[in-house]
Structures are given as structure tokens and as C-alpha cells.
């Protein structure tokens, strides 16, 4: 279904008020891949996502979508190409799942084009992809955290965009639901050819699921590439200021970061 889009941040500075958070950020999002942005707390990874999603205007530089600066494009036009799931979306009281997911159809509707069977089909497909069809008539308030997160992803999917940006979609989820969400995103990349950018906290899951990983520190890009090439002990030390040992994830053959703290360190490591 997917068309390939060129999506580039060029020399982007971002900040809130006088406080600059991200400096001279350059990134080309590889199309048809899952890109994961990692880094320590407050390193600016969510801010980068907000900048690329046109939720925050850069103070310098620009974000280009198919060659056009995204902040000057009509926002509705952007919304048909680029979907975003922010960190803490708000569900109106008592709204049911099908209605919430239907809000994702907003950019496809207008004054003269109201709800159509095509919208029903898009919502149904989003519910099916996120395995939330059986929740469709339930109030969102009553769902568990994992279910709710899948419903929000369904809302973003109903928007039917080729590009999808998600800010920490696995936060507050149990490990099984984290894996579920990341498997779902991988399905969307592999089966539908979507391009997905996601900010993640968990380094090991990031290394396992990322086609392309972007490591940030203090508002700057430190390294990017395939996790197996990028994630070295030196890089982990640089971005987190922490010693670690990198082993091979026995399940996925990707790098797995084992942290080294002050306690519980075996004799072999100390030697």
C-alpha cells in the first residue's frame, strides 16, 4: 500500500522558550524500515520526534517531507502522509473504542465528506491489525493499560498514513504487552511497507526490533545505523555514562546490553 516518502531533518534546533534542547540535528529516515530513537532521560529524543511531527517548530533548520518544509505545508495535507501518536493522548470521558479509533479519520473528512463505508473499513482494519476488534464497543475508560495502548495505535493506524511516529508507545506496559506492541509495529513495516519511527526506553528491545537505531545524547545525534554495528560498549558508555558488556541476544542475535553497576559484579568481570 505504501508509497516511499523522503523524510529528513536538516540542521534542526529545537527548544522550549529560551531553553535549547536539541542542536543541529540531521537525520534521514530510511523508508520502509523501523527506526528507533534511544538515549538517556532528557536527552531530547521525544523533542526530536515532536519536531519531526511538526508539533514543535524548529528554531533553526527544518524538517522536509518529500522535499517540502513540513512546518509550512498545510497541516491537513501532512496528516494524510504522516501519523503521530504523542506520549500522552487524552481519551474523552466515556468514549467507546470504535468512536476513538474513528477520530483517526479526521484528516480524510471535511465539510462535504462525512463518514463513509470507506471510513468503517479503515477503522475495522485498524482494529483487526491491533487485535482490538472484540473491544470495539467497550468504553476506553474500562480497558487495561495494554489494551488502551493498542487502541491508541489503532487510532493512529486508522489515519492510514505511510509514515508513523510513536513516542514511547510501550511505557507503562508489562513486558508481554511491550513485545506485543513492537511485534505489531514490525508487522506494519514488513507486511504493509510502512515507515515507522519510535522512541523507546528499553535498549535491548530497541536493539532487537530496530532496523535502524539512532542514539542521542544531550540533544545531539551520537550514532546511527544497524543496531549490531552501532551498539558498542563505547557508545553505551557515551550515551548513558555507564559501563556495560554487550552480548548476543540468544533469541534475536542482536546486541544485548548487560549493565555493570557497583554491586553484584562477578569475579570474572573484575579480573
Amino acid at each position: 500500500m505504501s508509497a516511499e516518502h523522503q523524510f529528513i531533518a536538516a540542521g534542526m534546533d529545537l527548544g522550549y522558550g529560551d531553553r535549547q534542547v536539541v542542536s543541529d540535528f540531521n537525520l534521514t529516515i530510511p523508508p520502509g524500515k523501523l527506526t528507533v530513537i534511544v538515549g538517556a532521560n532528557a536527552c531530547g529524543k521525544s523533542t526530536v520526534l515532536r519536531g519531526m511531527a511538526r508539533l514543535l517548530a524548529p528554531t533553526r533548520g527544518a524538517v522536509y517531507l518529500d522535499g517540502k518544509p513540513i512546518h509550512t505545508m498545510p497541516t491537513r495535507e501532512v496528516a494524510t502522509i504522516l501519523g503521530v501518536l504523542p506520549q500522552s493522548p487524552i481519551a474523552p470521558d466515556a468514549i467507546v473504542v470504535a468512536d476513538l479509533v474513528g477520530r483517526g479519520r479526521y484528516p480524510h473528512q471535511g465539510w462535504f465528506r462525512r463518514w463513509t463505508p470507506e471510513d468503517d473499513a479503515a477503522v475495522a482494519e485498524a482494529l483487526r491489525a491491533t487485535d482490538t476488534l472484540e473491544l470495539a464497543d467497550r468504553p476506553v475508560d474500562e480497558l487495561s493499560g495494554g489494551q488502551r495502548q493498542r487502541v491508541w495505535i489503532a487510532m493512529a493506524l486508522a489515519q492510514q498514513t505511510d509514515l508513523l511516529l510513536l513516542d514511547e508507545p510501550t511505557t507503562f506496559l508489562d513486558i508481554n504487552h511491550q513485545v506485543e506492541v513492537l511485534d505489531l509495529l514490525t508487522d506494519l513495516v514488513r507486511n504493509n511497507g510502512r515507515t515507522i519511527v519510535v522512541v523507546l526506553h528499553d535498549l535491548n528491545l530497541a536493539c532487537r526490533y530496530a532496523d535502524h537505531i539512532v542514539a542521542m545524547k544531550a540533544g545531539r545525534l551520537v550514532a546511527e545505523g544497524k543496531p549490531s554495528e552501532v551498539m558498542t560498549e563505547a557508545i553505551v558508555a557515551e550515551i548513558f555514562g555507564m559501563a556495560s558488556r554487550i552480548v548476543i541476544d540468544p533469541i534475536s542475535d542482536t546486541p544485548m546490553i548487560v549493565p555493570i553497576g557497583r554491586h553484584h559484579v562477578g569475579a570474572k568481570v573484575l579480573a
Partner: protein
Amino acid sequence: MTMALTPSAAVHAIRGNLATRRRNVTLGLAAALALTFALALYLGDFPVAPLDVLRSLLSPLTGEVNKGVDFIVLNVRVPRAVLAVLTGMSFALSGIIFQTLLRNPLASPDIIGISHGASASAVFGIIVLGLSGLWVSVGAFAGAVLTALAIYGLAWRNGVTAYRVVLIGIGMAAIMGAVMSYLFTRARLFEVQQALAWLIGSLNAANTGDIYPLAMALVVLIPLTIALLRTLDAMQLGDDTATALGARVEFSRLGLILAAVGYAAFATAAVGPVSFVAFVAGPIARRLLNGAGNGFLQAGLVGALVMLGSDMVAQHALPSIQLPVGVVTGVFGALFLLWLLMASNRAGRVN
């Protein structure tokens, strides 16, 4: 959910159910309003038989004139009921727009200081400038608009957050209350009495002339509201999500705030700051809908119903005394506020 349906048909069926519930609530409220309206034309100190009421209403068409009855029905009861419906609807729409934009049921114009601004301005007009009649309304309107601008300006810090608007609004309400208290201490008893009567809000002196400014305002405000409602559906999900969906958030918010201030200002100018109608209408409508819609049309109907019903109670509850409608809505609203606070405490949420 029936598993025999295709996913698409299931989604369609769920949306259909929501639409049905929405329609039923709307029809129910409209029927209740029509009934109350009919009752308002019938009830009164001067007994008029239902058929005579109907005959009077149709007299401009039929040419059948009965001067006494026509005066009671067409010049007293109809304007009063129409004004109750229009102001109730306006207060309700103002309330639900603020409550939805600020995501807080406390954020209605009678709590965040806009009504207080209108009141202080009207009291200033009555006591210091010696205004009366329509000029008091003009003063109230100006007060509402200026207070809203002041709240918006003071709450602005790279954009406007709901939290700051509510807090600054409550502070503004306190300041305006202090201004009124000061004016009262400086005033003569007669002026205080006149100002207080206006402050409680009343339909007792309603006449056709009060209806026109409000009706003309609604002709502008209602289409503006409808035009921006679709965006509000997206904005309910939070500013970031709405922007991501392609909504023009700041533009729509400004338009909606202007509309909400307009509703509150024109309604307050017409009947005084009748308390709590703006506050209760939205939550009642949403509770009736239970997730089946954003509740704007229904809130308007609830507001009209509360205003008209309260005015009937105010007129007829006590023999030989006509209470101001604000006394009744005040009691009703206070009970509702207590219930809202208790219910949200039980649910363990602040709002």
C-alpha cells in the same frame, strides 16, 4: 458484538447504535422542552384556557383578536419563555465549550470569572454611572468581554493551558467580587437593591426588546460554533494528537473561546448572571449521552430546559411572590455541584 458480522459491518453497527442513542436523547430533550414551553404559556396568575392560548398564538394568522388574552400570551408569556430558552441555550453552550476546551467541568464562565466581570461592570454602571435598562446590559457585555481578554492575556505563556486559565479565572472572580463589595459599601440603599436584583438574574421584566440582541448574536455564533465543532472532536484528544490529525488547534481554540465569551456575554446582558446554568448543562447532557457524542446540541437543550423549568418554579412555587430565576438555578446548581464533587471523589478522580 455479534461475531457473524464482518469487522466493517460491526464498526458500522456500533456507530449506528451510538447515533441511535444520540437521536433518542435529543428527541427526548426536545419533547421535554416543547412540553415545558407549552406549560409556560399556559401557567400564570391570569387563567387562560389551553385553547385560548393556541388561538392567541395563531391570531396573527387568523386575525381573531382578543386583546386581553393576546396581551398576556403574546406580550408577556411568549417573550419570557423565548428569552428563557435562548439564554438557557446560550449559557449552556458557553459552559460546554469552556468545559470541553479546558477539559475541566469547573471551567464554566460562571466559575472562571467571566460572569463576575459582567456583574462588576454592571454594578459599576448602576452605582457609579447611574445607568439603567439597556445600558446596564451594554456594560455587562463589555465587562464579560474585557474580563475574558484579561484572563486569556494573563494565562498566556507560549500558548494557553487549561490549568492556568482555570486558576487565573478563579482569581479574577475573586477580584471582581472584591470590586463589587467595594462598590456596594459606597452605594446608597436604593442603588444596592437595584444592583442586587440585576445580579441574581431574572426574567421577571422580560420583554420582546430583550430578545433581539441575543437572537441576532445567536445567528452569528451558532454557525461559527458548528463550523468549529468538528475540530473540537480532534482537540478532545489533546493538542498534540489534534495537531497530528491535521487540526488547526490555535485557530480553532481562539474561535471557540470567542464564541463561548459571546454566548456568555449576550446572555448575561439579557437576563443578568443567572448562576449555574452554564455549569450544569454540559455534564448533564454528557451523562445522558454516556459516550454517544460530544453533547453540544443536547447541552443547549438541557440549558434551555433548566432555565425554562427554573423560571416556572421561580414564578409559581410561592404564592404571590415571583422569585428571580437565579435563586432557583442557584439552589439546583449548588446541589448538582455537591453531587459532582461527591461522585468524582468516589471514582477517585479530581475531575
